[in-house]
């Protein structure tokens, strides 16, 4: 399930509507991750919303159950589309105090892989190191992005955005107040 060249892809993808040949290249997925990182680091959150599908999910599992299910596990974030859009509106307003004034963030994204497809959903993953700078402290969020993408014409849209932290606790970070 590693790359386009993997012959086992054909068998695994039999039920998929996205065939192995239709999977995006790693470069296309890297472009998506890098573009998203730039938008988020620049707080261009309304443009970032346009990268999401109509029914997006944004999840951060708790640090002790990183592979959990938000329906039966207490997550840190489990946003549907309404919640994500509200989050963005709040963050761009003045009374989201934890981000008013905004933090500086810098995202380093690497180890991008195209894992395959389930139905029309393309599974991709990447490693991240996100640094948040505020009040002269630097907090590092380390982990993995698991995304489900869908193809809409030329564009790839983010349908599910799961942020899996390797940090064992949000210490000393205290919070995830920006879009991680």
């Amino acid at each position: 399930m590693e790359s386009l060249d993997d012959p086992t892809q054909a068998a695994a993808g039999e039920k998929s509507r996205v065939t192995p040949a239709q999977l995006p290249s790693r470069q296309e997925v890297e472009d998506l991750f890098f573009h998203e990182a730039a938008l988020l680091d620049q707080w261009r959150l309304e443009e970032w919303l346009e990268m999401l599908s109509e029914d997006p999910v944004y999840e951060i599992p708790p640090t002790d159950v990183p592979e959990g299910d938000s329906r039966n596990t207490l997550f840190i974030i489990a946003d549907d589309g309404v919640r994500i859009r509200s989050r963005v509106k709040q963050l761009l307003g003045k009374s989201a105090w934890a981000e008013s004034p905004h933090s500086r963030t810098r995202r380093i994204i690497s180890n991008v892989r195209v894992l395959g497809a389930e139905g029309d959903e393309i599974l991709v993953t990447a490693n991240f190191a996100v640094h948040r700078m505020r009040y002269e402290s630097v907090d590092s969020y380390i982990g993995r992005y698991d995304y489900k993408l869908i193809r809409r014409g030329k564009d790839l849209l983010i349908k599910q955005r799961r942020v899996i932290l390797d940090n064992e606790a949000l210490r000393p970070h205290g919070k995830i107040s920006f879009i991680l």
Partner: protein
Amino acid sequence: MENAAKPFIIDDEQAGLFRVNRRAFIDPDCLEQERRAIFDRCWIYVGHESEVPHPGDYRSRTVAGRPLMLVRGDDGTLRVLLNTCTHRGAMVCRQRSGNAKTFQCPYHAWTYNSRGQLIGVPGEDSYSDGFKREQMGLVAPSQVDNYRGFIFACFDPATRSLYDYLAGAREYLDMVADQSEVGMRIVAGQQSYSARANWKLLVENSYDGYHGLPTHQRYFTFLSDLGIDMRASSAATPNRQKAVDLGNGHAVVEYQSAWGRPIAHWVAPFGEHRKPHFEELRRKFDARFGPERAGRICETSRNLGIFPNLVINDIMAITIRTFFPVAPDYMEVNAWALAPMEESAQDSALRLDNFLTFLGPGGFATPDDVEMLESCQRGFANREVAWSDISRGMKRAQPAITDELQMRAFWRQWNRLMTQPKLRQARKAA
């Protein structure tokens, strides 16, 4: 250091003024004194019985600075054990949670059973007759007790019983525990976070009704954007809110809230299809407790502070929150969700969804609370401003949730405990 000689609190009933010396938030000596006078003497929350349901189940966690184990023995008894080998000190439990018949110290392979008894010592024949294996089991805190599923430990054998200690807080723990007919459970997933602030700032914040509107404006805007009727909140119904001093430093605020509650207050964003189910749930509570108590359990929200560091907020969901100072300006916070065991998967999912709107390090409110506490802590660097004011509502006959009676209840108990050893010393000297 002129301020060091001044009292921790000024409690002037006649003038209606209450002040807290900010030294209490920044002074390392004060924290050392708190460790001895408060955390070593009070009943401290360890966990919930549902976290170790089966024989052999265990959880390891740090409580009051100590690595502890919460273990259900093979005899079915729940124990709290200090996670340190009685031989030379290594931690015998190295996992966060699991199920085990034995705990073997990795250093020299001493082995303990799930009751904490020492059952294996390699080369035991090298010890003298004076070495008694049965005296070398894992050590328990001086006292451990369970109130309706909530497990507490106390490191002082002289502290009165948990039942007496909880005092008026029992009524409010009951209103949480009574939400299930079979028992409450901790939902999987622990929110482990922190704040660069003194731990007592989180005590104050957790039942502070005054900060709600200014600090959490964005949350209330979110609710009204969802179509929730904000007139249902306490502001519109002042007769349905109160702040109560529960004794021994515990306090609560109880109020009518705009948000929906999984038990059992339906609001439009839950979906019209769920309304009959909520009505049915409410009827069950009416039948069990009568309409008045059922109304209180289901419709009011309650932020409960149990001295010194346990918060149980039964609001848009139930959160258990406990926190410990690491330094005067840094605390570690652990939070969980509590739910009735018999709750359906669907209802539980709704509960967790409702939880996350407000609560936790990624919610629409908790991050702003953390921000405010950290902001206070930074502000305290201005030592010229030596006192914080906690006088609000002091002369009011019926304190409102936006008053500061809750915090005064905490601070008075805190001050009693912090100044007691000095009294004892003074008596001794005399």
